[in-house]
C-alpha cells in the first residue's frame, strides 16, 4: 500500500516517545487517528514491519497492540491474498477508549495538555490577526459554520481540529501548524465534551466566532485573549468530566458493597 504523505498522517505514524506502556500508546494513537478520520473505516494499515519501524517500537510490542486493537474491534485482520490489517471505525469503542484514557490521566496531565494547547493556539491567533488574508479569514469562518452544523462526534472533532490547524496556517507558521496536529492526536484520545453535554458545541462555535471577529478587526491582543480563555475553559471541562466520572465510579463501588 502507498502511505499517504499529508502532514497529519506523518504525525499519526511518527515515532512514539510516550513513556507509558508502548503497546497502549500504539492503541491510543491508532484510536485517535480513527476518531479524527485520519484512518478511515476499512482502510488498510501499513504492514507490521513498516508500522513497527515508523513508530519505532519492536514487532513484539506492535503485535501486542494489534491484538488489543482487534479485541476492541478497531482493527480487523484478514489472511491470504488481499489480506492485512484494516481500520474499523466504531464510535462506541472510541468513546470507551476515551473514557479509559480520561480515567488514567491525572488532572495535572489534563492541565499540562491544556497549557500547551493554550500557548500554541493563542500565539497562532495573535499572529493570524496581523497575518491572515481576507481569503484566509473567510476560510476560518467557513470552518466555524461547518462545526456548527456537524452531526457526528467524529465530524465535530475533525472540524474543530481543522479550525486550530487552519488558524496556525493563517499565522504563516509551519511549526505552529505541526504543533497543532500533534496536539490534536493527543486531544483526540480524550472524550469529546459535547457528546456529554450537547450545549457545549454552541459554546465552542461562539468561542471560535469571537476569535474570527477579532482577527477580522485586526486586533491581535483580543484574538489571543479570547483563544486563551476558550482553551482554558475546555481544559476545565475535561477536568470536570474526569472528576464526575470518578464520582460515578465511586458511587458504583458503594452500591456494589452495600
Amino acid at each position: 500500500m502507498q502511505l499517504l504523505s499529508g502532514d497529519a498522517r506523518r504525525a499519526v505514524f511518527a515515532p512514539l516517545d510516550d513513556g507509558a506502556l508502548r503497546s497502549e500508546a500504539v492503541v491510543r494513537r491508532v484510536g485517535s487517528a480513527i476518531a479524527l478520520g485520519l484512518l478511515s473505516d476499512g482502510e488498510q494499515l501499513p504492514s507490521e514491519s513498516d508500522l513497527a519501524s515508523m513508530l519505532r517500537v519492536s514487532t513484539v510490542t506492535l503485535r501486542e497492540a494489534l491484538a488489543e486493537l482487534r479485541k476492541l474491534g478497531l482493527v480487523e485482520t484478514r489472511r491470504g491474498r488481499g489480506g492485512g490489517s484494516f481500520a474499523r471505525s466504531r464510535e462506541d469503542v472510541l468513546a470507551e477508549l476515551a473514557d479509559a484514557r480520561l480515567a488514567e490521566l491525572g488532572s495535572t496531565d489534563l492541565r499540562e495538555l491544556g497549557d500547551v494547547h493554550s500557548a500554541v493556539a493563542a500565539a497562532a491567533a495573535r499572529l493570524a490577526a496581523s497575518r491572515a488574508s481576507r481569503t484566509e479569514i473567510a476560510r476560518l469562518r467557513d470552518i466555524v459554520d461547518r462545526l456548527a452544523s456537524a452531526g457526528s462526534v467524529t465530524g465535530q472533532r475533525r472540524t474543530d481540529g481543522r479550525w486550530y490547524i487552519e488558524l496556525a496556517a493563517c499565522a504563516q507558521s509551519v511549526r505552529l501548524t505541526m504543533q497543532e496536529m500533534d496536539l490534536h492526536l493527543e486531544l483526540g484520545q480524550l472524550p469529546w465534551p459535547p457528546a456529554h453535554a450537547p450545549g457545549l458545541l454552541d459554546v465552542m462555535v461562539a468561542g471560535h466566532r469571537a476569535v474570527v471577529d477579532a482577527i477580522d478587526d485586526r486586533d491581535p491582543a483580543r484574538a489571543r485573549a479570547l483563544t486563551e480563555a476558550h482553551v482554558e475553559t475546555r481544559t476545565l471541562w475535561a477536568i470536570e468530566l474526569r472528576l464526575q466520572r470518578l464520582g460515578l465510579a465511586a458511587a458504583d463501588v458503594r452500591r456494589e458493597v452495600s
Partner: protein
Amino acid sequence: MTGGADELAGVAAAVSGLVEQVFVTVAGVRGAVLRSVERDGFRAGRWVLPDGVQELLREPGQLAVGLGLVVAPRPEQGLRQRLEWWQVDPGNGELHTLEPDLRPTSLGYYDYTTTEWFDVPRRTGRRHAFGPHVDVHGTGRYVLTFTEPVAAGSGFVGVAGADVPVRRFETHLLRALGALPGPFLLLNEEDRVVLSTAPRFLVGSLLPPGTRLPEAGTGIPGAPWRLVPVRDEHRLVG
C-alpha cells in the same frame, strides 16, 4: 536615494528572472501533460504525467522542490480529486510522489480545489504565483506555488505547477544580487511580504494597514508582485 531607481530596477529584473525560471519548469510539466493527453487521452485511473518529468527537479540550479499536475475533478465522469505530484524529500534528496489525504471526512483532508493556486488559473485561464503560504495538509512546507492552467480537449483539466520553498527563493535572489541595495520589500497582491531586506518587515506578514510607503513600487513582470523601497532604522549598528 541616488541610483535608487536603477538599483530597484535591477532587483525587479532579478526577481522576474527567477520567476520565469520556475515557469519554464511549469511549462515543461504542462507540455508533457498535453503530449500525454493527445497520445493516450485522459482516463480516471491512470496518471497523465509521463514518467521522467520528475527529472526536471534534478536539473542544476532548479529552484522548485515539487512539480506536477493537479487534476480538476469531474465527478460526472468518475474523475475524482487527484494529484500527480513529485517532490524532493527534504531529508535524503530522493524523489517521491505526494500522496495527500483526499477524503473529505478526514482531519487531514487536502481540499486543493479551494486553494488560490488552483482556483485563480481555473477562473482566469492565466498563470498565477501564490504565496508565501503554509501548504497545510499537502507538502506541509512554507512555499511559493507557481501554477498555469492546462486545457485539453474538453477544456480545463487541471493546473501544472511547481513549489519553491520561501527560504530557497530568498537565498537564490540574495545570492544573485550580491551587494544589497537599499532596503526593499517584495509584496504580493494581498500586500503580504514575499521577501524583505528590512528586518522590521517579516516574511509572511501583511503590510500593516496605513503603512506609508515612499512610493507605489515597481511591478514584477510575470507575477502579481511589486517591489517597494522602504526606510528602515538600523538596530544593530550606528
